[in-house]
C-alpha cells in the first residue's frame, strides 16, 4: 500500500500505510456475554502480526460495507497474540458486528488513543469503577494491575449493571472476588429475587471498598452521569483530581484527528483521549452540551 507524500512535502509522512484502511482479522472465538453483548477473539487474516496495545486504547472495527465504530480493547495486554473486543449491539454497525460468527472477517484499524496510567499509579491503591459496557475498557487495566500485583496497593473493582443478566465476564468476576487483596463489588439497578448482591448506583459501593484516598488512583468508565457522581464522591473523600482518570466517549469517524467529530473542548477524544485525567477535563465536564 503506497502512501503518497514525498519526503519534501510540507507534511511529514507518518511512514505507515493509509491510516484509513482497515486490516482483515478473523474471528476465532465468540462468547455470548449477555443477550446483546459478545466478546470476540480476533487474529490477523492478512498474515501479519498484532501490534501491542496499552490498556485503555481502542480500535475502529469495520463491518464490511456497513460502517466502522470505535471499540475498546478488552483483552490482556500480556497476551497480545489475540485481539479481544467486547461489543454491545446498539445500532446498525454494532449489530452487524455482533451478528458475525466464528470464522468471519472483521476490519480493524488501530490501536488508537491514550492509556490508563499504569506507571503513574505505582504504589497507589487502585479503585476501578465501571458501569455497563464500561467494564470492557477497564479489563485490560485490571489484568495489568494483577500481573504486577506487588507494584500496587489494594485493588478494588466496583461494577454496576442494570440487571444481573447484564453483567459481563461473570465467571471472571467470581474468580477475582475470591482473591486475596482484591475487593470486587458488584451492584445492579434492578434485581430479581435470585439476586443477593447490592442494588443501586455504583457510587454507593465506594464505602464498602478499602483505599487510602491520599494514595489512590481511580479509573472510571461508564455513562457520563455515573462518572460525574463517582468523581464527586472520590474528590469528597480526598482523591486528587490528577489521580482520577476517566474514559470519554464521543462520536468518532476517523480516530486519527481529522474528522473533528470527537471534539471535547480542545481535546480530540480519539488521540488526546479517550483516557483523560480529571484535572485535564474538569473545566469541560462542568459545561453541559460541550
Amino acid at each position, binding site marked *: *500500500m*503506497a*502512501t*503518497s*507524500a514525498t519526503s*519534501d*512535502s*510540507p*507534511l*511529514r*509522512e*507518518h511512514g505507515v*500505510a*493509509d*491510516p*484509513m*484502511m482497515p486490516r*482483515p482479522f*478473523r474471528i476465532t472465538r465468540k462468547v455470548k456475554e449477555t443477550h446483546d453483548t459478545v466478546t470476540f477473539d480476533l487474529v490477523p*487474516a492478512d498474515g501479519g502480526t498484532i501490534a501491542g496495545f496499552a490498556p485503555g486504547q481502542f480500535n475502529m472495527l*469495520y463491518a*464490511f*460495507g*456497513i*460502517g*466502522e465504530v470505535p471499540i475498546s480493547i478488552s483483552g490482556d495486554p500480556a497476551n497480545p497474540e489475540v485481539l479481544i473486543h467486547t461489543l454491545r449491539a*446498539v*445500532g446498525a454497525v454494532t449489530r*452487524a458486528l455482533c*451478528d*458475525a460468527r*466464528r*470464522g*468471519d*472477517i472483521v*476490519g480493524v484499524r488501530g490501536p*488508537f*488513543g*491514550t492509556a490508563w496510567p499504569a506507571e503513574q499509579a505505582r504504589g497507589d491503591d487502585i479503585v476501578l469503577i465501571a458501569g455497563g459496557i464500561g467494564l470492557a475498557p477497564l479489563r485490560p487495566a485490571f489484568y495489568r494491575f494483577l500481573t504486577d500485583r506487588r507494584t500496587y496497593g489494594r485493588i478494588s473493582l466496583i461494577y454496576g449493571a442494570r440487571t444481573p443478566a447484564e453483567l459481563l465476564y461473570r465467571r471472571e468476576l467470581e474468580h477475582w472476588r475470591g482473591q486475596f487483596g482484591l475487593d470486587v463489588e458488584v451492584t445492579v439497578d434492578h434485581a430479581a429475587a435470585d439476586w443477593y448482591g447490592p442494588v443501586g448506583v455504583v457510587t454507593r459501593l465506594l464505602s464498602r471498598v478499602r483505599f487510602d484516598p491520599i494514595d489512590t488512583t481511580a479509573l472510571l468508565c461508564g455513562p457520563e452521569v455515573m462518572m460525574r457522581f463517582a468523581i464527586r464522591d472520590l474528590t469528597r473523600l480526598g482523591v486528587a483530581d490528577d489521580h482520577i482518570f476517566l474514559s470519554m*466517549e*464521543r*462520536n468518532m*469517524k*476517523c480516530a486519527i*484527528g*481529522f*474528522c*473533528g*467529530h470527537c*471534539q471535547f*473542548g*480542545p481535546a*480530540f477524544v480519539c*488521540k*488526546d483521549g479517550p483516557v483523560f485525567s480529571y484535572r485535564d477535563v474538569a*473545566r469541560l465536564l462542568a*459545561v*453541559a*452540551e*460541550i
Partner: protein
Amino acid sequence: MQVFDLSALDRLVQVLGERGYLVIGPVLRDGAIVYDEITSSRDLPIGWTDLQEGGSYRLHKRADQARFGYVVGPHSWKRYLFPPEVRLWQLRRSRDGYLGSRQSSGQTGDNGQLDAISPATQGDLSPPRQAFIGVRSCELHAIHIQDRVFGAGNGARGAARGTPNWHDPVYARRRHDAFLVSVQCTQAGGTCFCTSMGTGPKAESGFDLALTEVIDGKEHYFAVEAGSDRGREVLEEVPHRAATDTEAEAAARAVARSVDQMDSGVRGRTMETAGIKELLYRNQEHPRWDEVAQRCLACANCTMVCPTCFCSNVEDKSDITGEHAERWRRWDSCFHRDFSYLHGGSVRPSTRARYRQWMTHKLASWIDQFGTSGCVGCGRCITWCPVGIDITEEVAAIRASDAQHREGEKSG
C-alpha cells in the same frame, strides 16, 4: 520586484499548463466569483467586483478592466486540497462470507480477506497537479492552517501523550504539488477583517508567485514577486522586466489602500483578539449564546464556506451484491445535529451549543489544538450567513459583558 504586462498573464497560464498543472482561478458563475479551471485570462472575471455585507453578496461592474478586482467568493482553495467528497478506498470481498451476509456461506474459514482493489483509487490519490491563481493573503494563511490540521502540527497535544501524529494522504499529495500564485488585495471586502487576524492583506510568504495588479490611469500591469525556486523558474518563462521605482511604489500604495480601508472602517471590520481564547473559555455560559441561537438556522453555510473548517464524515457503503464496498469522506459540519451523535442522542442537541462549539473552536480551542487561530478573517461566514450573523459582532458582544466583569458587577 519585477513587472509584467496584461498579456503576460496569458503566458503564465500557458506555462503552468505546459508544466502539467491544471490551472484553477476565479471565474464568474451563477452570480458569484468561484474557483474553477481556466485556460486563459479571458476566463477571469474581468471588470467585476463583489459587494459584500452580512448576509449579502452582489456582483457589480467596475469602471476598469481589473482582472482581480473582487475580494473572495463562496469558494476557497480548500475544495481543491481537501475535496468536498473523496473516495478513500474500495474493497472487494473474497469468496468467503463476511459480516452481515450470512446467507452467502454456511461454511466459514479460509480466505475471507478484505481484498484491497487499491488503497485509494487512482483519481482520488493521484490527482492532477494543480496551480491556483488568485490566492489571497488570508487564503494562504488558511492553507497553512490546514497544513497543520492535516499533517504537521496535528496532534500537538496527542504527541505529548505519546499518540502518533498522522497525516492525511489525500491532502498531502495535493498540497505538495500545488503551485500558488497569490494576488495582493488592493481593496478590502465589506466583511474582511484580516488586519485583525494578522493574515493580510499583503501576502508576505508561502506563495510561489505573488502578483499585485496595478491600474493607474492608462497603465495596467502586474508587479511580481517570486517566493520559491519553482516560482522563479516559471517566471523565467514569462516575459517580464525589473520594476521601476515608480512601479514598485504604485504596487505598495495599492496594497496600503486595503489596509487603510479596514483600519478606517470604510470597508471591512475589526475583531479584538487579545486574550480571546481565555475570553471564550470563561464565557461558555454567556447569555449571548442564547441570543445568537435565536437567529442561527444551523444551516452550516458558515462552515462550508470557511477556508479552514476541516470536519468530515466518513461513509461506508456497499453495492447491491454486497461484494464490493467503498469508503467516502465528505465535508461535514458541527452545525448538524447528528455530528455529535452517541446512541441515545446528540451531545449538542441545541443550536446554542452548536454555534458555541463552532465559534469557540475557530477562535479558542483551535489555538490549543494547532497553535494558531482557526480564523483568518476572510469574512465568508458573515457574507454567506443567510441571516447575517457576524462573528466579529458576536465576539464584541461577549467581550462587552465578559463573565469576569459580570461577576464584578454582582459583587460590586
